[in-house]
């Protein structure tokens, strides 16, 4: 049975250089490539702040989330392709308004790119403006989708009317639901855009965190854009 001092961080460990955690590892070659800890001076300082200083995990997490959402739509795509191959399929005419919404969402990706560019140039006002414009375009897109729905309903095309209409309502609704998440993300960016830090360390930290948040929302927003173009093509241009 071996008992170790190990958790006892800080000074005590330094006085007891036994095995275990006590080592700060500075200057020792570990031969491994784990990413966290160890670059800070001994004594335990700094480790827990690293999370805020290098928030890569927002980006990684967002890519992983995108992968899983993509799987959801891939599953539905395969169901759609499978179903369309079976008899009894009637094609639905694309509501013209969808062309408008497609244009709007593509434009929103450009405005988001402009917002990011402004942020990189440190132009806070332009950043706020472009994020705001993107947000409005996102809302406009949802509005267009809603009106397109209303138009179809006015023609008597409902969820259960035909396989194609079922898939149309389902895919557009799921996409709109996910896009609403993106709008929440944009609103968060807009709310946080006014926040100014009091110089020095803190300002740097706020900047890094904002950069990570913008990246994460950006990954999601561009994905939503691309996903819509894909769904539009699948629903009305494919076959």
């Amino acid at each position, binding site marked *: 049975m071996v008992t170790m001092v*190990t958790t006892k961080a800080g000074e005590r460990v330094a006085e007891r250089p036994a095995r*275990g955690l006590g080592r700060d590892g500075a200057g020792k070659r570990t031969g*491994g490539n784990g990413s966290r800890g160890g670059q800070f001076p001994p004594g335990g300082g700094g480790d827990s702040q690293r999370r805020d200083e290098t928030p890569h995990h927002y980006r990684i997490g967002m890519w992983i989330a995108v992968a899983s959402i993509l799987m959801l739509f891939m599953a539905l795509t395969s169901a759609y392709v499978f179903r369309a191959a079976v008899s*009894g399929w009637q094609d639905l005419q694309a509501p013209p308004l969808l062309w408008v919404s497609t244009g709007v969402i593509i434009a929103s990706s450009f405005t988001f790119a402009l917002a990011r560019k402004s942020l990189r140039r440190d132009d806070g006002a332009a950043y706020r403006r472009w994020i705001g414009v993107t947000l409005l375009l996102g809302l406009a897109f949802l509005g267009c989708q809603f009106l397109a729905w209303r138009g179809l309903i006015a023609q008597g095309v409902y*969820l*259960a009317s035909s396989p194609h209409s079922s898939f149309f309502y389902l895919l557009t609704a799921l996409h709109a639901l996910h896009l609403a998440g993106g709008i929440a993300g944009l609103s968060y960016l807009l709310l946080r855009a006014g926040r100014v830090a009091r110089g020095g360390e803190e300002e740097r930290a706020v900047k890094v965190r904002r950069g990570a948040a913008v990246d994460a929302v950006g990954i999601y927003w561009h994905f939503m854009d691309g996903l819509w173009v894909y769904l539009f093509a699948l629903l009305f241009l494919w076959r």
Partner: protein
Amino acid sequence: MGRLLAVLLWVITIASVWLFANPRWWFPRGITEHAPDYDRQFMLTIYVVGVAFVAAQIALGVAVWHYSSKGDRAERAVYTHGNNRLEMLWTGITALIFIGVALLGQRVWARLHFYQSPAGSAQVHVVAQQFQWNFHYPGADGQFGHTEPRLIKDAELNFVGLDEQDPAAKDDQVVTTLVIPVNRPVELALRSKDVTHSIWVPETRFKQDLVPGMNINVHFTPVETGKFELACAELCGQLHFKMKSYLLVVPQDVYNEMLGSIQYLILAMFSAFTGMLMSLLMRLKLTTEHPFAFLETIFPNGAPGGVMTPEFYLSLVTMHGTMMVFFVLTTAPQGGFGNYMLPIQVGADDMAFPRLNMLSFWVTLVGLLVLISAIFVEGSTSLGTSGFVNKYLGGGGSGTIGPIGGWTGYPPLSALGKIAGPGQGAGVTIWGLSIAIFCVGSLLGALNFITTLLNMRCRGMSLMRMPLTCWSWFTTAILALLAFPVLLAAIVLLVLDRTAGTSFFIPAGEVVSDALLTHKGGSPILWQHLFWFFGHPEVYIAILPGMGVTSHLLSTFSRRPVFGYRAMVFAMFGIGLLGFFVWGHHMFISGMSPYTGMAFSVLTLSIGVPSAIKTFNWLGTVWGGKLRFTTPMLFALGFVSLFVAGGVTGLVLGQTTLDLAMHDTYFVLAHFHLVMGVAAIFGIFAGFYFWFPKMFGRMMNETWGKVHFFLSFIGVYGIFMPMHTMGVVGMPRRYSAFTEYAFLGKLSPLVLFVTVSAFFTAAAQLIFLFNFFWSLKRGERAGDNPWEATTLEWVIPSPPPFDNFGGKLPTVYRGSYEFSVPGAPDDFILQTTPDEDVPGLSHAGDGAPATREQGVSTGNGHNGHH
């Protein structure tokens, strides 16, 4: 001279004002609730004294400038003995201001000292000693263990004199970093062992002496997270200047995180025992038609006259499967052990997204509650007539018990609604919603696992140094991430078919109960494709963590490195990858194209290759080891045996030809229960016995553990081996009675034997329950590393501190399984031990290879694998 003095006075005044007005040298930002009040009071005071200071200095300067004598003796000063009115005025104003400031200056003090700390405060006992801070936490029970000065033994690391005999002391923690939750009052009970110390963190705006012989209680509320230096502010000896520690203010959910993983385990244990009870009821129904009065008492609808109805039996089948697959096999290894151990094993202080972590638990819990509610909604006739259920959930309950459809929920049966018979009403919709909720919870969890593993590994923890448990959780998370969205999609389609009249899975021209349905035409097989695209990876989601923990334990208790570590990792990924291309083997006879079936068959058999690699490597690990037969080791060995027993029959079922007779018989039942059910459960038990000391600080009783193992091992073989031959005879699944067919008649002795084995096995689980609760209270105290293992969870105390590593992340120098390294003094080397600290290892110096994965740098190269 007067003018010089005046100028000097003014310069000093300006310099002093500048010094105080300069934000560079000021308080650090306050992080407590009272800090803004403190700062406001300080500013108020500084303005008042500043005005006084400046006014007095200016006045003095003006006076010496203006009234200096010119040297003319004839000059006369103003002759007066004072001005009573002026004196009263300035005395009065000064007194008013000073009294006002003095009164205002008591507010924060009074709030901190004259009020009891609010209920629900976090409690920490602080014991100072020369040049060291000890922070004593009550642990999970919220009770501080008894302490006694005579028990203090620094050499044994009992710094506060904790009484080991006291049951309340068992889970107490004594650490050297003060960790407190944010936004919650914290009450510190301050004591000193030797001389007077004083606890001080500038950011808290708080300081308090710790006086020997006195017990001082103070409280404050931190409102910001972060890590802050903690100092001693009272001269306590020669090293006073470095009596340093840290204050770590963490989010409440991090503070509760350990609790979170244990919540997952409790959820899984509840589901496991519920699922087990259901299987006992099922066995009872299959074995005898004898009426039992108690059944009618508990289930008046399901067992009228004490005999279970067929629909009751089928709802048990459905709920047993759903509960076991989702809420036990998916939840326990990943949510329970993975959440707890993954961050520790990769050297992280927490998961990447702690809040998401809590969220995924609560979502999973809601999923379970919704699933349970499905039983009651479906089982109730009164709820069934309510407008909401009728309108939105596809028809009300049928008055029997629970939804019917099996855990696979094949449409059209599951999609038609109440018209399709009993057990097809709202309960099935709710069953679907529960699975959808579960999917979301699992996805959030998977996202967190992958990010943590990719981004939060500590220094030196390369991927190929991770314990195989981490690899298995990682692979499982990837599978979950890609498989659960597909299930979610399928469930959404199914629920729409049930409630919105769509026709994704319902073909046109259905005639059900003499009614021609209006559905436009969908495909029932589509569901099977979507479901099994998820369903087959789900099998590996259940079993892979068991493989990981088995590899981990076989190495640890054989005292040998894992045989073929890399092969193990690649085999795990191979199984995961191939698992996505074999779903069709569940559908050979479904009407799918026979050519497709052949492709699926070949791919299915190829999964046997990585599975065989794993089995060979497990044998290779055990072979030539020095085996220690602890309870976790026994369960790991049991896993290997059961995995092989259940796995080999996959070669039978995976062949298109042989499936012709075996499909949906008890042979299939035996196959998947052994491999993904029982083997996975044995993996969970192995992990439970292995990590119990780490999680609760006490050992589980080994004797009872071994009894539990042997009885369970015999029991499960007794249940599932006979099922193979039942399947060969042709006994079909999901029959509520076998009385209708003559060819099944001769199986009745086997049916009885299986039922007896089931009750026997279930009884053995009571031993586990008893052992669990008994050990929680009275188990032998576990040290940091009771199993003499090598990975990171064993270098921290049991149970671990709130942030896993007490404020300091570890550094890793070697792979996970360095056992019996030639030349080393012990037969294991911790991952955190540098080569320099292992006497006997020939240290290769600067020429050491830059990347050592598994293995240590000894003169004879990659050792340990002979």
